[in-house]
């Protein structure tokens, strides 16, 4: 298996409702990545793209072919990945394998989504399609609802009184907004307070509006290259050191593992093993904080804190830059935004920028190893990628 490097990255500004199409957004991110990589569109040998709900957003399925045409990567292999909110991470992992296996030398990966074109009612319905349509949908579950169930379960299992857990959850959102205010590409540029979170609309008890990520439009892209090609094209290759991905059935079938998601235990374990690393080796993580409690659960499954303890660590500042592990310096899904099919690529974008030391006010100084963590549905897909500096 060959080593694979990220040699260029691009990302649009993440936003609420805007006028560009999903193809246009992807093309802009793709060209930024291609230009940064010192290659031309004709050098791209294949395209792997995450797109969750294009069918409902613009009546556009098979978006990958139109993206390839739009960027001038004419007639290349183009595949779309639908792994709910982990679509782009699944795309990156498959693209990695094509290059690692020696079939291609330079490929483009990424994701694009225009969630806000659906409007909130249809968006809520289509997002709910990522849960089990036969055995979960009839009770009217949504994703805030799923994580609300997990929050109450977490409170009970770890004997953390709900008001205390809510305070910990609120701080997760406060941290995300703090960093997003220092990320020019983030959807929200405004800091919030714990009181703002605790006074926001109750969506699904105990999850309030400011515990939730927004609906977002945006795209991100990365150029992957073989080690040999990367050596010719960039002085700052970022290597994909480890990957892991796992699946699971609906929430009820994960019973004995809840509130933690079993697929994450597997995916994280695979990625650490492949990289020959442990949680303490990771300097910065972009993890799947679709809801504040999701961030706390993820930090524990990734091995950064013991179970039942991540919320306390958040309150102690251990998840901020300069703390034990820098969590979501981009602002995370909560405040950078969550264009579902693009999210995994945007997480990788941030990690690559951090490892290159290009993040300005939100830079994790000296970061050498970073990790992404992307969740699809209620644990149906879990995808982890470990990246490391190649210079």
């Amino acid at each position, binding site marked *: 298996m060959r080593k694979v490097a990220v040699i260029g990255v691009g990302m649009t500004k993440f936003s609420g409702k805007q006028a560009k199409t999903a193809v246009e957004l992807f093309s802009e991110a793709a060209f930024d990545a291609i230009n940064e990589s010192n290659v031309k569109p004709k050098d791209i040998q294949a395209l792997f793209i995450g797109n969750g709900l294009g069918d409902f957003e613009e009546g556009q399925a098979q978006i990958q072919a139109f993206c390839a045409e739009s960027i001038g990567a004419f007639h290349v292999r183009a595949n779309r990945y639908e792994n709910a909110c982990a679509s782009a991470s699944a795309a990156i992992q498959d693209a990695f394998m094509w290059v690692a296996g020696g079939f291609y030398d330079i490929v483009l990966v990424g994701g694009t989504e225009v969630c806000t074109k659906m409007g909130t009612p249809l968006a*809520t319905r289509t997002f709910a399609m990522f849960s089990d349509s*036969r055995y979960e949908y*009839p009770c*009217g579950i949504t994703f805030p*609802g799923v994580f609300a*169930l997990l929050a109450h379960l977490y409170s009970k299992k770890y004997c953390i009184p709900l008001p205390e857990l809510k305070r910990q959850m609120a701080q997760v959102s406060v941290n995300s907004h703090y960093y997003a205010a220092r990320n020019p590409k983030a959807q929200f540029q405004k800091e919030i307070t714990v009181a703002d979170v605790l006074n926001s609309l109750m969506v*699904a008890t105990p999850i309030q509006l400011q515990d939730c990520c927004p609906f977002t439009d945006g795209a991100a892209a990365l150029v992957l290259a073989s080690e040999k090609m990367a050596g010719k094209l960039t002085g700052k290759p970022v290597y994909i050191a480890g990957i892991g991905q796992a699946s699971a059935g609906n929430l009820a079938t994960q019973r004995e593992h809840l509130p933690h998601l079993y697929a994450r235990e597997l995916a994280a374990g695979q990625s650490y093993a492949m990289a020959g690393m442990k949680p303490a080796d990771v300097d910065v993580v972009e993890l799947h904080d679709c809801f504040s409690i999701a961030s706390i659960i993820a930090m524990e499954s990734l091995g950064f804190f013991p179970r039942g303890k991540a919320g306390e660590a958040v309150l102690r500042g251990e998840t901020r830059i300069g703390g034990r592990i820098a969590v979501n310096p981009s602002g995370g899904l909560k405040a950078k935004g969550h264009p579902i099919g693009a999210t995994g690529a945007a997480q990788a974008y941030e990690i690559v920028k951090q490892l290159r030391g290009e993040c300005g006010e939100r830079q994790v100084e000296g970061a050498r190893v970073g990790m992404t963590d992307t969740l699809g549905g209620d644990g149906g897909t879990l995808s982890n990628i470990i990246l490391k500096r190649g210079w």
Partner: protein
Amino acid sequence: MEHRLLFKDYNAALKQNKLLGLKCEACGDVAGQPGMACRKCGSTDLSIIELKGLGVIQSFTVMNVAPEGMEARVPYIVVLVELNEGPWIMGNLSGLSPLDANMDIIGKRVTMQQTVPVSDKYSGGEVCGPVFALAAS
């Protein structure tokens, strides 16, 4: 190889307030929904059993924002229930005001009382979900 229990038959039974599951003849594990293989041991030697619909609430939420088409139900309670036979199942809870749904209901015994049929243009026909009520103590 054919399924022992199809969604179609599970759903038809549920509409009659009967909750079907699958018992693994190899390891004894019970699943609360159709599937080709035992989730515990992978065996395909499964038998249909009728679940009693009795269980204990493991978690809950009061939903104030519904997906498109379910707005009229707001607010409603969603519960995760551990059935006496072992499997967990997601359903609704009726007979309790959403205002009274707090952490104290975790651990309470429930019985499946009825089912709620839902459908929209995306659902591929009518799909039923179980509705539980707190058991008389």
